[in-house]
């Protein structure tokens, strides 16, 4: 019985969808690596992604251009994250409360404008998604080719971003400054680095990535927008960053792990296996807790993690 289910083709489609499902976690996680490294715990990733999803969907729907959709998602994600920047950096508010507020507001705004723009329809409006981009030669390799090289372009770009993020953080002055304002903002300040400016950058970059990931969900994966489209992926991304100890490569593995959990749930559900669907749906969330349990004790948080900065305080 089991051997009938766990065939080669099962694993091929499982791993291929693992990669696809890792993408909307990997993208925001990479963005949050910047943000958290700079010392800001931005819990409003969920809200930023929902905003990105609705903005991207609307743009793609009316223009018919998916790239414009992704771009719009990114811009709106970034604009929305600027609220977090104002609250946490300029006003030095409690980051947990600010993040929670922005999640509630983000969900409200996204659904409000979706309803206003599209009204209530019996069938949800759809967009045509990105075509699968088979990479020549490589995609013809049996098994590996199907798993790795038959995805839409956003998936490839997301994984390329891992290397770019690593490079920027480790090899550039910009990355060094981002890390410095999270590690010792006073020191950075005394060395002539504007703490607020770099924290703003780090938050806005986080918004950019989250917006892209939201748009990916609505126009690169589901092709529709729903109220619960993000489904906790924003929070999972925050957890992945901690799990990855703020390192891009590890974040990629973390995202893949969650991709695998979601893919497993979908595949097994499709096969109609005995485990109730609701219990399978818990899997990614339970996994998040387990990942946090395993990683948190060892994680070396940036010294100024979740702490606002002001020159006056000594």
């Amino acid at each position: 019985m089991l051997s009938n289910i766990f065939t080669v083709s099962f694993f091929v489609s499982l791993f291929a969808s693992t990669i696809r499902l890792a993408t909307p976690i990997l993208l925001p996680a990479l963005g949050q690596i910047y943000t958290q490294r700079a010392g800001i715990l931005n819990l409003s990733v969920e809200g930023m992604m929902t905003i990105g999803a609705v903005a991207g969907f609307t743009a793609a729907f009316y223009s018919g251009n998916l790239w414009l959709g992704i771009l719009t998602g990114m811009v709106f994600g970034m604009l929305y994250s600027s609220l977090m920047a104002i609250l946490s950096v300029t006003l030095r508010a409690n980051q947990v409360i600010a993040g929670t507020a922005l999640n509630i507001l983000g969900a409200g705004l996204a659904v409000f404008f979706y309803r206003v723009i599209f009204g209530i329809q019996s069938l949800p409006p759809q967009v045509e998604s990105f075509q699968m981009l088979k990479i020549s030669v490589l995609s013809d390799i049996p098994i590996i080719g199907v798993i790795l090289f038959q995805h839409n372009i956003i998936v490839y770009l997301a994984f390329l971003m891992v290397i770019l993020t690593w490079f920027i953080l480790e090899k550039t002055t910009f990355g060094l400054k981002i890390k410095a304002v999270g590690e010792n903002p006073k020191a950075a300040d005394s060395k002539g680095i504007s703490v607020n400016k770099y924290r703003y950058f780090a938050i806005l970059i986080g918004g950019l990535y989250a917006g892209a990931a939201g748009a990916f969900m609505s126009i690169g994966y589901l092709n529709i927008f729903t109220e619960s489209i993000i489904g906790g992926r924003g929070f999972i991304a925050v957890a992945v960053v901690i799990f990855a100890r703020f390192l891009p490569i590890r974040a990629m593995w973390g995202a893949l792990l969650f991709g695998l959990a979601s893919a497993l749930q979908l595949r097994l559900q499709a096969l109609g296996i005995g485990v109730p669907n609701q219990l399978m749906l818990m899997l990614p969330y339970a996994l998040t807790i387990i990942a946090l349990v395993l990683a948190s004790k060892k994680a070396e948080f940036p010294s100024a993690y979740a702490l606002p900065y002001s020159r006056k305080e000594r």
Partner: protein
Amino acid sequence: MRNKLTKNLNQLLLAIGTIILALLVGAVIISFSGNSPIEAYLSMFNGAFGSKQRFMEVLVKMIPLVIMALGTSVAFKANLWNIGADGQFIMGSIFAIFVTIYSGLPPIIGIPVSIIAAMIGGGLWAGLAGWIKVKFNANEVITTLMLNYIAVYFLSFLVYGPMMDPGGSKMPQTKLIPDAFRLPLFESGNRLHIGIFISLIIVVIMIFFWKSTLGFKIALLGQGEKVTTYSGVSVKKMIVFTMIISGLLSGIAGWTEIYGVQYRLLEGITSGYGSMAIVIALMGGLNPVGILISGFFFSALLVGGATMQRMTDIPFSIVDIVQGLIIIFIIARTAINFKEIKNRIVRRMEHVK
């Protein structure tokens, strides 16, 4: 004494100012959508206070919301960001219904047992997050939130599976609890039940709770872990304890909703109460009386918002937007140093002279 009075009055005025500001921004957003904000707010107000029945409905919503917000406030006061009130509400409901349906206890014992079960369910669920924090240093914001999702799917699993009403034509819900277990209504024709007294009693209990040594220890934890340890209070114990108290209150909230309104488990019983409880707790300044007042306001917003959605083209989400805006304005208000700004302006004026 008078000092305290003016202070409270000031706080109330500030709160009202915050709400007005949020409603104004909400009005701008509504007009963006091509609707009339005046119409929207009128229909909202009418929806909440337009008839006795509607007003009673506001009080019905207020019962679980106030209790949940009190639970949330306990954790927040200790600087523990328990944002999993929804999950704790659900687990409390599940535990309570479970013993009521399957134990066969007579109401006189069964009712108190079901309350205790609800407290255990909610307390365990929050305590679990507290224990994970203490043991593994895992951020409670994320764990309580993940536990929400897990509770939601667990509830859905139960009502679609083992606890589904056998005689209910495959609807995803449990069977109804016996009449004798239901909280009595005040009058037929509306849903207001005696749970309103329970929530008022809990408000009073919480007033005394914050004057007790246990409340002292929880609030001390909110001042920092180092000073807590230094004072001879075990931080680890207090974290777990605080979370349990916070969660058991949400469990009771679930109990009032199930035994007073729904009479059974079904999907979506919390429908966003958790995030509203956070807003109510913050708006109420984490203070029991403040929470009672802000709980009333937000219940009215909730009931009025639902009516507004039915009567106009404006989506209910405007209620979420107003909630989010209110928290933002609250934190902005505490963050902005008005004194410094005033000084700066005064100084500039002097320069001009």
